[in-house]
């Protein structure tokens, strides 16, 4: 639209980026945190802190499933759905669950779950009511306080704009290379630009991958048209075609005794001798139409749909299964999805994912701070409403989200376990803390306010391990002694962030001082402001 392609792309990069940077920051932040979804679930649930990892996890699975079916046939006799969820590396406990009858207005029936320690097969102390890592996971793709579908559309379009910002950013980077040799007086903005470029370029393949695949995870909402035009009965027909289902006995009438689960497991282990079973689900137990679905861990394969075998519960006949070999299109689609969720990631790769996510947060934060700095320098003291709005949103979002996250975890420890609606109150704490950051940003948005927020954040991050030590039996030292690495790293990360925010507070103090003296060096602020 401008005279040259470069200028058009620069314009597009600036405006597309600015329009969506705060919502994208929330998405990136929550998404990065979500890579530790299971670890957060563990931390939020003190009942499972002391469950040891099993020595031979896979070998114990058959016994656990058989015991589970025993348990469920006693307790869940009238239920229409059973579930045995086996322990995994990151979720070290066993769950037996059966569905309660659906209440009117409910889309899915609720499950009555019993959690067990897999080493002793004893019931674990009752779980506290918490959303845990699932809160961040949902926040990541459908936001909060919004209708789920509206939230997803917003996330989709914000992500698409992010993708455009990345593409246009790559295009204009050539120009930035040229500009590197030209003299610039404004070292302040210049350093922000360097930080922006560094965080973008270092993790560029990650940013491109995660943004593209992120939209793909919601693609059937965004573009249902191929499925709608190809299948006569639309999306339902398509999904029926892709998902293995019991079309053999699912219409059978009347009740029928369940076959012993061992006969079904025999078939599973004949097909996959080293199967690492994730869960066994039964629909319509004790009916002729009953289906037993055995889900197996895909290991490191790039597969989104968990490999599964479907049996008739009454006859033990194998009725359907997921494809052993994926077709090219399916492999493409499934690998795009599984690359985004990273469920296959080993600890090292998981940390790389997190580092990529942090680089993304830095890229977005430096981008919107840079915009505000540039405009402020140009406007020479007179700040327009738009500039003030941008500065306010910058402060409230960039510094507010860490504070809100701390509040969420502190609330998890301080709220009484018996409180009704406890999980929602944790979320309320999250948004209240964010609101506080918003109010601070509303008052003023200068360096002093950034310093205040940095100091508050340092204190909040420090409080998380401290409150944990005061309210539970463990603390960061005991975690280290007992090699409870997940809990130790969780607490240690908050200490690390506390120190980083402290460094930022200190940097901002010297920066505000330097501003008063005539020979000001604004570049000081560049590193400190992003922790």
């Amino acid at each position, binding site marked *: *639209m*401008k*005279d040259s*392609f470069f200028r*058009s*792309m620069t*314009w*597009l990069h600036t405006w597309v980026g600015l329009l969506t940077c705060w919502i994208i920051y929330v998405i990136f932040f929550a998404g990065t945190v979500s890579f530790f979804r299971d670890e957060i679930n563990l931390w939020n649930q003190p009942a499972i802190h002391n469950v040891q990892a099993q020595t031979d996890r896979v070998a114990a699975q058959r016994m656990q499933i058989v015991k589970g079916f025993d348990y469920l046939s006693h307790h869940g006799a009238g239920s229409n759905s059973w579930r045995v969820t086996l322990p995994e590396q990151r979720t070290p406990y066993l769950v037996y669950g059966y569905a309660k009858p659906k209440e009117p207005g409910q889309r899915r029936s609720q499950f009555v779950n019993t959690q067990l320690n897999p080493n002793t097969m004893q019931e674990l102390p009752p779980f506290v009511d918490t959303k845990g890592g699932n809160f961040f996971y949902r926040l990541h793709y459908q936001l909060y306080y919004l209708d789920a579908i509206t939230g997803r559309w917003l996330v989709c379009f914000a992500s*698409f704009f992010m*993708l*455009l910002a990345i*593409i*246009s950013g790559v295009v204009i980077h050539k120009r930035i290379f040229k500009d590197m040799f030209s003299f610039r007086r404004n070292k302040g903005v210049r350093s922000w630009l360097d930080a922006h470029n560094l965080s973008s370029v270092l993790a560029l393949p990650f940013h491109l991958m995660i943004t*593209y695949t992120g*939209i*793909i995870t919601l*693609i*059937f909402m*965004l*573009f249902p*048209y*191929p*499925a*709608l*035009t*190809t*299948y006569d009965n639309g999306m339902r027909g*398509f999904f029926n*075609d*892709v998902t293995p289902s019991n079309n053999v006995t699912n219409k059978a009438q009347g009740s029928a005794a369940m076959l012993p689960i061992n006969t079904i497991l025999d078939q599973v282990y004949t097909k996959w001798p080293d199967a690492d079973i994730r869960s066994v689900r039964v629909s319509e137990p004790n009916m002729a139409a009953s289906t037993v679905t055995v889900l197996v861990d895909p290991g490191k394969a790039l597969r989104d749909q968990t490999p599964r075998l479907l049996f008739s519960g009454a006859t033990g006949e194998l009725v359907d299964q997921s494809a052993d070999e994926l*077709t*090219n*299109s*399916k492999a*493409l*689609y499934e690998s*795009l999805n599984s690359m985004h969720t990273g469920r296959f990631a080993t600890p090292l790769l998981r940390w790389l994912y997190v580092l990529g996510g942090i680089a993304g947060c830095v890229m977005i934060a430096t981008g919107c701070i840079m915009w505000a700095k540039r405009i402020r320098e140009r406007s020479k003291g007179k700040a327009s409403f738009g500039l003030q709005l941008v500065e306010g949103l910058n402060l409230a979002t960039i510094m507010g989200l860490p504070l809100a996250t701390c509040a969420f975890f502190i609330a998890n420890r301080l709220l009484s376990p018996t409180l009704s609606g406890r999980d929602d109150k944790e979320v309320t704490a999250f948004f209240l803390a964010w609101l506080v950051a918003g109010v601070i940003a509303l008052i003023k948005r200068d360096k002093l306010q950034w310093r205040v927020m940095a100091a508050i954040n340092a204190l909040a991050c420090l409080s998380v391990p401290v409150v944990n030590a005061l309210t539970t039996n463990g603390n960061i030292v005991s975690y280290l002694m007992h090699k409870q690495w997940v809990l130790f790293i969780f607490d240690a990360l908050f200490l690390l962030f506390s120190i980083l925010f402290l460094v930022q507070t200190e940097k901002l103090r010297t920066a505000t001082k330097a501003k008063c003296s005539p020979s000001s060096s604004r570049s000081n602020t560049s590193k400190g402001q992003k922790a």
Partner: protein
Amino acid sequence: MQAPLHRASFTKFNLAALLKIASSYRLLVFLRFFIAIVGGYAFTSASIALLSAVLPIAKQDAVLFCVSISILIYAIVFIYAFAIKSLKTVWISILLSTGLFVGILAVLKDWL
């Protein structure tokens, strides 16, 4: 007294002219975003719907392939809408090609 007055009227005149340009500039930007977002969406929808109908592979594979590349198509159209200088060209090319795709699809599917 004379000089400031003169300057004031001069600024006023400039401001009016500027406002006129700005409003039309804003309109142009809006039109470009509109064709990029809505037109790009329509173009992508139509093209992948048509592609999934004509690809000579299994139905579910065609659908999965088409949705996997949909965002790539959308992004290219969006960039195209901002890269081409003439707004008229952008509007006409996107509308025509979208219409063409929908037309072919309608013939193929016997919608008419």
